[in-house]
């Protein structure tokens, strides 16, 4: 999955989303830049409140609050999704760019049959008769591994299990063969065994359709399974991005160390206790000055009071950027001290 040769699908530059609340302005997304190429899986990783879901929703034009202010640009091929008119946006939604939502229990309308809910999308974009549309739906449902697809057309969402519903959501998202698929925590609401199946479906699709997938998640296990590139978000900003290998083997930002440290790995001796990041994520209403991670970072010093830029800092790795001003050599040393935040990254990944 080399990203450099394939077509550039999505180009997000300096995306900012803020909400006016009675208490003040909340900067939910701050200067986020991302690219997505055909056939690539980009994982956007972060904890709750990091702005990753708001980013995903904004790309779909679903941040509709009258209190929201959106800045920057997000080009889907030549169309800027942030400034597109309602009709232009409608034409690409579901057709060019589709989304899989977190909770399959609530994301399907409970009073309509699932077949109808997918047919509705196909007929919004394609001039097909009901019969043709239903055949297309059956094909999609079979593709995502739903048995007896034709009978399931007339099922209501509540008659299906959670995993089946998420497959229906995926079939819905894929029904018009979109070139960009945004998956917002697609496995979070599901059982672990079902999660693996859904990930299998997703990676299968990436191979078959050459679509680009933006995978929004807090689950690094999911990321390790499927991602080509990773962007780590913290408090509205991307703090580090690079290839999956770079992030997992050579993480540069202390927050990324913390994230990686918080998952247990079977290929390592088990630490006495999983290290965790102390403190709470900052209030986006009154974010800390400079580096947002500064109040929780054990290595913070005066230089962190200025907002660090997201630039390549590792010699020779041009696509690996981070927002930590520490020298790469010092980072490598700190990472290896036990008991500090982050785990040493050694050994074979996967």
């Amino acid at each position, binding site marked *: 999955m080399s990203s450099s040769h394939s077509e550039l699908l999505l180009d997000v530059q300096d995306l900012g989303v803020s909400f006016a609340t009675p208490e003040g302005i909340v900067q939910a997304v701050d200067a986020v830049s991302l690219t997505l190429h055909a056939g690539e899986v980009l994982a956007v990783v*972060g904890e709750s409140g990091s*702005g990753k*879901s708001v980013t995903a929703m904004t790309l779909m034009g679903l941040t509709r*609050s009258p209190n*929201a202010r959106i800045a920057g640009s997000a080009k889907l091929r030549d169309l800027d999704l942030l400034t597109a008119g309602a009709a232009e946006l409608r034409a690409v939604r579901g057709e060019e760019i589709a989304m899989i939502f977190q909770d399959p229990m609530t994301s399907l309308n409970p009073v309509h049959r699932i077949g109808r809910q997918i047919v509705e999308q196909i007929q919004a974009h394609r001039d097909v008769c009901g019969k043709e549309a239903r055949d297309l739906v059956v094909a999609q449902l079979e593709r995502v591994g739903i048995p007896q697809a034709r009978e399931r057309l007339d099922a209501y969402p509540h008659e299906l299990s959670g995993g089946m519903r998420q497959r229906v959501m995926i079939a819905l998202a894929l029904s018009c063969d979109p070139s960009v698929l945004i998956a917002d*925590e697609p496995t979070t609401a599901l059982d672990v065994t079902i999660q693996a199946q859904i990930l299998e479906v997703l990676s299968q699709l990436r191979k078959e359709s050459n679509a680009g997938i933006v995978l929004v998640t807090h689950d690094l296990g999911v990321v390790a399974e499927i991602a080509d590139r990773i962007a780590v978000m913290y408090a509205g900003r991307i703090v580090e991005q690079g290839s999956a290998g770079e992030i997992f083997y050579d993480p540069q930002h202390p927050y990324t160390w913390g994230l990686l440290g918080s998952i247990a790995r079977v290929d390592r001796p088990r630490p006495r206790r999983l290290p965790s990041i102390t403190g709470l994520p900052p209030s986006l209403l009154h974010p800390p000055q400079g580096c947002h991670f500064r109040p929780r970072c054990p290595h913070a010093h005066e230089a962190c009071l200025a907002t660090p830029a997201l630039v390549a800092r590792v010699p020779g790795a041009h696509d690996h950027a981070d927002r930590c001003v520490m020298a790469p050599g010092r980072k490598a040393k700190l990472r290896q001290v036990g008991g500090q935040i982050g785990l040493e990254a050694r050994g074979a990944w996967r």
Partner: protein
Amino acid sequence: MASGVQPRSHAALPEVGRPAGLALRRLRRNRTALGFGALFVALVALALAAPLWAHIAGTTPSKNHLSDTVVVDGRTEQVVTFDGVPIAPTWQKKFFLGADTNGRDVAVRLLYGARNSLFIGIAAALITTVLAVLLGTLAGYFRGWTDAVISRSLDVLWAFPVLLLGVALGVSLALGGLKVGPLEISGDSKWIPTMIIAVVSVVYLARPIRGQVLSLREKEFVEAARAQGAGPLRIMFGELLPNLVSTILVFFALLVANAILLEAALSFLGAGVQPPEPSWGTMLAEGITLLATSPHLTIVPGLMLVLTVLSLNIFGDGVRDALDPRGKVRPEHG
């Protein structure tokens, strides 16, 4: 969900911890609701001050001035003409809002009527609340046959055409009064419409209370109280009741508003407050028949009633918005 709008900041914590304080702050921001709440308080104060105005006007709510005259703009006019048409509002101390066909001062009757209407409205709502909380809590807490008996009775009440029931009870009790053991209520007592309204309204509040108790009794804090050896009474009044307060508050203003309207309807049909005792309902009932000659007899008590009920409805609405966390405007995601 990763929405930046509800940050887990330290500043947000006290709000979560003290819902009552939060609700109060939200209510304080709602100027309209507060304004109408104040209006209702003012109306109650006005009703309490009825004797004061009666003193100023120099009459009582039941004193007839059929053959009296009053000086308006320098001219002497009959309070009630020989054709039986009462004087219109004079906008002065005597007969400020005109007279009725018996030559009684409408302004004085309006204020005394307000005492009765408000008394019935508030007393009925209080009784309804006590009955509904009792029934709803018992049914929800004990479940089983207690619940079956209470719920089925409420079903019957629900199926009963409320106004038909109220009118039937009102007319028959007004005639005969009520005798239950040592308690004796005469037919013209305002406790009769009060009790009727209280009883027919119980179902509106008892059902939601029962539902809430059914879910509350499974909560950990009830389990904890039970584990500490608390009896059913302690749990019902010590643990459950405080959690029902917001439901009760939301309903209370609306119950009062509803009771005032119901009193007017019953009185209009002769099944409520009995003449000569004034209430807005009885004044309307008398006034409507004279709409052609004396519209003030219909318009004055009607406007007073609408203003009162409207102020309660708007205030109650504000209370509900403040207490209901869903009332918050939230962004479309998150």
